[in-house]
């Protein structure tokens, strides 16, 4: 938490950053939501429009389709009539129109004037003509009976030749009346070929302006017939339609937005008579987009309002959350401040301790070195005095005592030197296979030599050969220390038992004897430096032996432990590692 310098101001900055980040995220989410909503609004409204448009158009087309079907069927039924066939096939053209009139029955009641049809869907033809197999109109006997036509209108009914299948087309008559044409071939029952055709003109399905504001009109011969439009709008549309037709050949189009009468409208164009021999006629529909745009605008406003509300809520929420999150951070900052002070103190203390330790190590090392020489000089002096003949036997004894003390002093100094080397980490052991039996026997010999008093009883129980990983000198020191302790603290005359055992990688050497138990309170401290058990206050020693033994044993990869210390029996164990655990080259050297 050092990244929060200066406590309170750091917390404030953190809070501000958190608030900014959260506001940013909320704003981004809101904007993304608005974008999605906008897209969906546009898509939805366009979809709705297309549905509305499609349903209205499809209604209109269904009506047309049904009517067209019935008209076409009517024409087909008429041209199947035996009288029509008879008139054409039996060389009786004069009977053709009368027969047709007869067959059509109510088709054209005399006196009906064209454009009089009030019914929205009329299946009565406005006129009809027969066309011979050369494509020429067979002149009617009495034109008004079959619907009068101007000569140029009559020309528009014909093709070159006779169609083999029914054809649909449109005719614009004077007065802008649109007439739907159905040309039905008359297939001779005798030759199986089209010998003539019936062309009938029907009034189209009246197209009123529907609920959705759809206008439909007809595009024929490069002209648009859409009476419900103003002249200017019609002219403007006339420029658009050829492009749409060229674009997709009059297939059902998705619609093209155009400007008509200053308002945006959707333009639809569809071929009315695909594949017909009559001139191509296209249904042109325009659909005002004003309603759609207004709806889109409304929806956008709603969306924007909702977005703003959402944003405000989001910002509020982020403010609250950042405040809530900042509180623990503030606490944390305070705590960490305390922690820092403590730690700095501890670190300072550690540094001081380290320096002290270093100083003490250096001191003991120096002291030991400095002491060695005077002790040597002292001993040499004492030896010299002992060698003189003029000293009394009393003096000789005292001098011998003093010499003995110098040996003790040397031993202490050496131990201290060793310890200081251990402490400073400068002691490195050269581990190699060491014969434990030899170590034990040598130590026992040394022990016996330095022993004064009743002969020592030492029981040794060792396997034939145990090789441990050790440094001969220090291994001897460990084992010797333990034996020396046993001798010093053991009951006089009691045997010392030395038992070694192997267990896998570990070698255990237990030195035990009869001794006063070590008090429970002291057991933890016997391995500390300069500690001496209270029981042995009258026993010579300087309290470094066990500590040295343990530290050296640990350098050997083992340890020294107190296994047991109860009424009259004390056991110390030193663990070593088997020589087989040494690296291979060390073994070879041995």
């Amino acid at each position, binding site marked *: 938490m050092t990244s929060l310098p200066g406590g309170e101001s750091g917390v404030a900055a953190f809070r501000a950053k958190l608030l900014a980040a959260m506001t940013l995220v909320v704003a981004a989410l809101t904007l993304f939501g608005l974008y999605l909503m906008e897209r969906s609004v546009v898509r939805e409204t366009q979809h709705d429009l297309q549905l509305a448009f499609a349903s209205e158009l499809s209604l209109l087309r269904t009506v047309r389709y049904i009517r067209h079907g019935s008209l076409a069927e009517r024409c087909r039924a008429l041209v199947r*009539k035996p*009288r029509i*066939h*008879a*008139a054409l096939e039996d060389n*009786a053209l004069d009977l053709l129109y009368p027969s047709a009139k007869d067959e059509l029955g109510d088709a054209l009641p005399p006196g009906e004037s064209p454009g009089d049809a009030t019914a929205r869907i009329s299946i009565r033809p406005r006129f009809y003509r027969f066309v011979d197999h050369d494509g020429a109109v067979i002149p009617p006997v009495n034109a008004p009976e079959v619907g009068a036509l101007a000569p140029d209108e009559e020309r528009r009914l014909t093709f070159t030749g006779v169609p083999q299948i029914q054809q649909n087309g449109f005719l614009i008559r004077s007065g802008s009346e649109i007439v739907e044409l159905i040309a039905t071939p008359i297939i001779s*029952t*005798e030759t199986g070929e089209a010998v003539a055709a019936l062309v009938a003109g029907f009034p189209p399905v009246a197209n009123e302006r529907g609920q959705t504001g759809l206008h439909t009109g007809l595009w024929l011969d490069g002209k648009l017939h859409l009476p419900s439009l103003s002249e200017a709008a019609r002219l403007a549309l006339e420029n658009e339609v050829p492009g749409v037709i060229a674009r997709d050949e009059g297939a059902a189009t998705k619609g093209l937005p155009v400007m008509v009468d200053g308002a945006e409208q959707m333009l639809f164009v569809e071929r009315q008579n695909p594949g017909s021999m009559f001139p191509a006629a296209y249904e042109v529909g325009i659909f005002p987009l004003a309603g759609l745009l207004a709806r889109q605008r409304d929806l956008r406003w709603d969306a924007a309002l909702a977005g703003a509300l959402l944003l405000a809520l989001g910002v509020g929420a982020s403010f609250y959350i950042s405040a809530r999150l900042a509180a623990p951070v503030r606490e944390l900052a305070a705590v960490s401040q305390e922690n820092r002070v403590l730690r700095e103190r501890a670190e300072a203390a550690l540094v001081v301790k380290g320096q002290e330790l270093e100083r003490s190590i250096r001191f003991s090392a120096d002291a030991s070195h400095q002491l060695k020489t005077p002790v040597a000089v002292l001993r040499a002096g004492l030896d010299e005095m002992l060698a003189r003949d003029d000293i009394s036997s009393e003096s000789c004894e005292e001098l011998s005592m003093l010499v003995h003390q110098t040996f003790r002093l040397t031993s202490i100094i050496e131990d201290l030197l060793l310890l200081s080397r251990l402490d400073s980490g400068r002691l490195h052991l050269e581990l190699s296979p060491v014969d434990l039996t030899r170590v034990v026997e040598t130590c026992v010999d040394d022990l016996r030599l330095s022993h004064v008093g009743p002969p020592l009883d030492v029981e040794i129980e060792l396997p034939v050969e145990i090789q441990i990983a050790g440094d001969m000198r220090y291994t001897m020191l460990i084992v010797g220390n333990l034996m020396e302790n046993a001798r010093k603290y053991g009951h006089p005359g009691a045997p010392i038992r030395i038992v070694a055992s192997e267990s896998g990688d570990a070698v255990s050497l237990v030195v035990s004897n009869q001794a006063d138990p070590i008090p429970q309170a002291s057991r933890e401290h016997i391995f500390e430096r300069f500690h001496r058990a209270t029981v042995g206050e009258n026993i010579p020693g300087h309290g470094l032996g066990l500590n040295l033994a343990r530290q050296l044993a640990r350098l050997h990869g083992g340890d020294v432990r107190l296994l047991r210390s109860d009424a009259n029996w004390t056991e110390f164990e030193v663990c070593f590692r088997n020589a087989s655990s040494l690296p291979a080259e060390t073994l070879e050297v041995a």
Partner: protein
Amino acid sequence: MRLRNALAIFTVSIVLVEPALSQALVEGHITLPKTRHAPVANKRYEIVSTGGVLAPYPPFAVVYLEGRFSLPAGDLPVQQMSQKDLAFVTPLLPVRVGTKVEFPNLDNTFHNIFSFSPVKRFDLGRYTSEERPIPSQVFDKPGLVTLRCDIHEHMRGLIVVLDTPHFVKTDADGRFKLGNLPSGSYKLKAWLDSKTTLERLVELKAGSTLRVDLP
């Protein structure tokens, strides 16, 4: 075969010619259009149209002698063109000019026989089998009359109106025999279909039999 025919004809002519030696006889064979199926005994005749040509099926021909004849006085027998099972029972009827033809309806439904043929235009209107008198027409101009039914568009009938008393239908193989003919020069014609009439000039001698094979 031919020998046997000749022998038979010879025998018949001996028998027939004997009472009226002034009469001539023409017999022969008309090559009829090939049919895919052999004629069946009780197969119904019908009028078929191939490429706008109407012809009876199975095919047969009407053989007649054209010329000026002193028409026998008296009523000509009334002929019938009855409709049964939505078809004309005799789809091709040769009649002499002035013959009255009745069109009885033998079905349980209406028929409306009419003709727009220039030779004879008529329309009998709808009628049932109960209609009395039986609807009829007198055919007073020679030529071919196509009969149709306004209700059943598939129905076709043909009446060949001939300006001669001497005519006969061939059998299914095209054989014919036309007797009781006056002597003189005439045109022997064979009507095969609505577009085909074969003809040959013949010189008839009283009491003789002329053999004519067409074409």
